[in-house]
């Protein structure tokens, strides 16, 4: 018995060390994201600027005003936005994979991205601005239409299949997103003048984002991710199949709706503010599972951490490689992500 408890505590210790390492890497990447660029800024200066800004202190004169506004107005919101978007996408990807019991599922499977793209496309083409929303018209309509698509797809699935089986949901999602994609293609082919903006919006970018977007998204992710984590036990149980989950006492249909809605909202709002960025939501959950096992109370927060870190790194690459122009970050994620994922996943598989 004694030996068993020692073994358990060793596992806990190793896990703690891994978490600490992950957090340190994250902080280093965040600092790199703020520090690297046309004007390099040292970590020490970044700390001083953040400290003074947050606590309303005067900034020491050795740091120029340009540096301060570079950090505070441009790079910090950009890095934070990338971090939150990456985190929200990854947390939501984890949930989708477990709820739908499918390692290839993500919110995109259910049509969030195509719905959002159609909404955004219509806003761009017709130049719609809703006066109360102002500049937020595009993201908010993107979010609403993304969520609406998921809602329609899942409702449709639950109508044709009372038990809401996973395969029905996935198929309904695919049908809806393909259908909506084709509408978008038709709409954009008829509005060639706006084609470039639509395409660029879809590629995803964190450029020229302000604090308002950061704050809105931080609130959504700050509420959404903990709400998901509260359902970790249910998520664990649901990966064993729907019948078993019910037999163990999970109110399956209710929990499923709730989690699908939450993760669609997380992805939807991330997409609305940054465009369609793929890949993170699909792979970070697998990386987190490889390192920490499948238990969701670790996998959900840690995939969020990994996804955020990874997104900041991808954005850093996207904006520095061919500076002063930028690469689309959506392409960069897969460009660095795919080989990295292949390395981690298959190397570990061989050993384990």
């Amino acid at each position, binding site marked *: 018995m004694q030996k*068993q408890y020692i*073994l358990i505590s060793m*596992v806990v210790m190793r896990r703690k060390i891994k978490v600490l390492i992950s957090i340190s890497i994250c902080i280093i990447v965040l600092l790199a994201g703020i520090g690297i660029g046309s004007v390099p800024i040292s970590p020490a200066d970044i700390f001083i600027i953040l400290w003074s800004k947050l606590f309303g202190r005067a900034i020491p004169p050795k740091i120029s005003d340009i540096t301060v506004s570079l950090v505070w107005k441009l790079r910090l919101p950009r890095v934070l936005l990338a971090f939150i978007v990456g985190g929200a996408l990854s947390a939501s990807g984890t949930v989708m*994979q*477990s709820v739908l*019991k*499918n*390692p290839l599922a993500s919110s995109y499977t259910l049509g969030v991205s195509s719905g959002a793209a159609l909404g955004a496309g219509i806003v761009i083409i017709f130049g719609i601005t809703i006066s109360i929303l102002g500049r937020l018209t595009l993201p908010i309509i993107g979010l609403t239409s993304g969520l609406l698509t998921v809602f329609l797809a899942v409702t449709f699935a639950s109508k044709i299949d009372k038990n809401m089986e996973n395969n029905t949901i996935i198929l309904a999602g695919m049908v809806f997103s393909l259908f909506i994609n084709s509408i978008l293609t038709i709409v954009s082919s008829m509005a060639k003048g706006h084609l470039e903006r639509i395409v660029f919006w879809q590629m995803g970018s964190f450029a020229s984002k302000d604090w308002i977007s950061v704050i809105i998204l931080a609130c959504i992710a700050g509420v959404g991710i903990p709400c998901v*984590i*509260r359902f*970790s*036990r249910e998520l*664990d*149980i649901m*990966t*064993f*199949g729907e*019948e*078993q989950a*019910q*037999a*163990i*006492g*999970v*109110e*399956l249909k209710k929990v499923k709706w709730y989690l699908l809605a939450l993760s669609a909202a997380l992805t939807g709002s991330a997409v609305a503010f940054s465009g369609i960025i793929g890949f993170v939501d699909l792979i970070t959950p697998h990386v987190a*599972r490889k390192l920490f*096992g*499948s*238990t969701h*109370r670790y996998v959900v927060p840690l995939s969020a951490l990994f996804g955020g870190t990874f997104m900041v790194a991808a954005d850093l690459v996207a904006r520095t490689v061919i500076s002063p122009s930028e690469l689309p970050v959506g392409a960069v994620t897969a460009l660095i992500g795919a080989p990295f994922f292949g390395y981690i996943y298959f190397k570990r598989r061989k050993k384990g």
Partner: protein
Amino acid sequence: MLSVKGLFCGYNGVDVIKDASLDITAGENISIIGPNGSGKTTFLRAIAGLIPYKGSIRLDDKEIAQMKRKEIASKIAFMSQISSIYFSYTVFETVMLGRYLRMKGGVFSEPSKKDKEFVLQCLNAVGLTELKDRQITSLSGGQLQRVFIARTFAQEPEIILLDEPTNHLDLKHQIELVEYLKEWSHKDRRVVVGVFHDINLAMQFSNKILLFNNGQIAAYGDYRTFFDGDFLKTIYSIDIKNYMLNSLRRWENYG
């Protein structure tokens, strides 16, 4: 404790079970046997409240269809046949999931000492204590089966429903499991209902046998009162008694 009356149920509006009625009292074990597609699994699913039904299934005088999931799951555990596993957990974690309704405390609090000990006890019962830190994806089919059986024990139910629990198990583990299940139900007057394909094992597990044929109860009760070569022949369309006797004769040639 469980009373089924005029039960009809099935999938997509087609009834698989047609007009089944029976009573199960506390402390008894029941083996369900019958040819493929005769409704054994469907019957278990209906009792576990997993599929809609017509007629009535009452658990301690409460209609299953009107009970909440949690209420059912605190009394009835159900182990379906193994499906593929996508995400791996340790053996210990998997069995701990059976404590879902019993665990108190938030998501991040460690399971209580009582829960941990209970899980270890369940693992011990199926002989998996040694493997408790292994990943379930690295287990053999038989070991995995025993993990899931331990999880139904961890649920602390009054009734355990097992769909082919001895599937994937070697002979030694089949017999051990059957003996353990008998002991488990006998100890606290609980009920185990198991679907078996092996008629010998069914007879070893319980005297009471429920025989399904074409979605109807062909016989229910002490098998010694109705087992008879001709009767089983009409249901299984092979001469089971002769088959068994032939096997026996083959064994008699060995020392």
